[in-house]
C-alpha cells in the first residue's frame, strides 16, 4: 500500500516522559507542512497523532511511532509494549477513560483519546493483547 518512494520516519516513545511528550507528533506535523499537505489533513493528523502518542506516554512501557508518507496517503502506526486494552469496544466509547487523577490533573484523560483518533482519521484499526501491548494504525487519504 505504501510505495517504495515513500518517506518513512520513526520515533520512539517512553512511559511518563512528559517533557518530550508530543514531540513526535509535532515532528510529523512539521514534515507534512514541508510537503505541502492540505491544512485540513495536517489538522487531523496533528490531533490524532498527539492523542495516540500521549496514550503510549501515559499507559505503556515504551512504544514506536512509524509514519509513512507518499503522494496518496499518510499511514501512521503506533505499537507499544504495555498492559494492552481488555475491552476495546468499551475503550472506543466516547467518554470512557482509565486515566488516574494525576493524569487528569495534567489535563489528560477526558476519555477523548481513541474515539478522537478514529474521528480524525480516514482508516482506523486497533489490535491489542492484554499484557503485551497495543497496535494502532491510522490512515489519512491525501
Amino acid at each position, binding site marked *: 500500500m505504501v510505495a517504495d*518512494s*515513500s*518517506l518513512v*520516519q520513526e520515533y520512539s516513545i517512553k512511559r511518563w516522559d512528559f517533557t518530550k511528550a*508530543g514531540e513526535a*507528533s*509535532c515532528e510529523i*506535523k512539521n*514534515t507534512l*507542512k*514541508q*510537503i*505541502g*499537505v492540505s*491544512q485540513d489533513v*495536517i*489538522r487531523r493528523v*496533528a*490531533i490524532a497523532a*498527539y*492523542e495516540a502518542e500521549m496514550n503510549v506516554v501515559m499507559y505503556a512501557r515504551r512504544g514506536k511511532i512509524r509514519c509513512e*508518507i*507518499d*503522494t496518496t496517503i499518510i499511514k501512521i502506526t503506533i505499537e507499544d509494549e504495555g498492559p494492552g486494552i481488555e475491552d476495546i469496544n468499551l475503550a472506543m466509547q466516547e467518554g470512557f477513560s482509565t486515566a488516574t487523577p494525576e493524569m487528569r490533573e495534567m*489535563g489528560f484523560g477526558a476519555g477523548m483519546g481513541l474515539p*478522537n483518533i478514529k474521528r480524525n482519521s480516514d482508516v482506523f484499526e486497533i489490535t491489542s493483547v492484554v499484557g503485551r501491548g497495543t497496535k494502532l494504525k491510522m490512515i489519512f487519504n*491525501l
Partner: protein
Amino acid sequence: MQKQRHSIRFIEEKCIGCVTCVRACPTKAIRVVNGKAHVNHDRCIDCGECFRLCPHDAISSETTSYADLEQFDCTIALPSPVLYSQFSYDVMPNQILLALKEIGFDYVFDEAWDCELTTDALQEYLDTTEGPFPKISITCPVVVRLITMLYPNLVKNLVKLEIPRESAAKKFRQKAVKSREISPEKIGVIHITPCPAKMISINHPVGLEKSNLDGAIAISDIYGRLLEALKGLEEDVILQLSSGIGIAWAITGGEIMGIHQENCLAVSGVQDVIRVLNDVEAGKLNDIVFLECLICPDGCIGGSLTVQNRHQARRKVRRLIKMFGEHTRVSREMVLRLYRGGYFNQQKEISPNPLPPLDPDPGKAIQKLKQRDEILKNLPGKNCSACGAPDCRTLAEDVVLGQSSIDDCVFLTLDKLKEKA
C-alpha cells in the same frame, strides 16, 4: 519610496558572521554566507530576537525618527502603556503624558485607555463569538505573523477585533481634523513603541487595508528628551484616563486581567509561544477560551526598544495597577454601544500565508525530505552552526534545495583532511 518589508537591518561592515542571530532566529530565517549574516525575508516575522542578541551591534531596527515629525502640521502621540514602566518608581503616567506634550507633540492621548475599552469589547466578543476556541489575541503583530506563516490552521482562531492602537489612531485623527480644521494627511499619528514590529504592522498591516498610524517612535529614541522634559514639569492637566486594567496591557497577562472568563491563558516569550501554539494545534487546549500570546519575554515590557530592564518595569507596572485599581473606568453601556456600532470591527479578514513546501510537487517534496534525512545521517549532529545554518538538519535541507554545500560542514571537512594526511 517602497515601504520596507521588515524593520530589521543587517549592517554588513559590523557583522563578523558569529552566528548568534542564526541560532536565535525562531523561524530559521538567517544564514551566515561568506562570513556575513543574511536574512530570508520570506521567513522573517520581525520578532527582533536577532536584534536583541547581536553582540556586535550589527543589526539595527528601523522606526520613525524624531526628525520625521516635521513633515506633519499636527502630531498626535499614542504611547504604549509600556512607556509608563520606564521611569523611576515615583514618576506617574500623567507626568509622562505631559512630558510627551512638552517635547513637541500637539496632542497626547492615553493609549492605555483604549486598551481598557478593548478589554471590555473583548469580553463581549468572547461572550458572543462562536468557535473555534481558543480565540488568540492579535495585539502582538509578531504572533499574528507567526500564526499566518507557521500555523495557518489557527488563523481562524484569531480574535476579530481591531487592536487598541489602531482604533485609537482613527478616533483621534478624526478629532484633530475637526478641532484644527486641517486635512487628515497633515496629521501625524505616532505610536510610542517598545518594539520594532509595530513599525511593520503600520507599513504592512494584516487586519486592515491601511494603518491608521503614520509611524512609530522607539521608546529608547525619545527617552532622553522625556527625562529632560520631566524636570520641572508643571502638572496642570489630567491626560491619564486609564485604570490598572488598561495599564496592565504592558505586561503578560494584562489583556486577560480585565476578562471575567476563567479559562484564559497568557503566554510570553518566543519559545513558549511556539510551544503553546503546537499544543493548540494538537487539540490540547480546547477548554481555553482566550489565549494571550506576546512574543517578547514578560510581554511588551520585554520589547527590544525599551530602556528599563523588564523586571524593574514589571515591578513598576504592578505598582501602577495597584495605585489605579483593577476596576475598569470604562462604562459598559458605552462600550456595548460602540461595539454594536462597529467601532471595534476588524476591517479586513486576516488570511493564512503559509511557508511554501520544499517543492510545489508533493512527490518531489517527499523525495527532497528523504534526501535530507540521508544527508543528515552523515552530518555530525553537533548543531555547531559553523556552516552558517542554525543546525545540522537545516544545513541538510539547504543542501537539498541547492542553497548550500555539504562541504560547509567543518567536521566533515576536518575528517576529509585527516584522511588525506
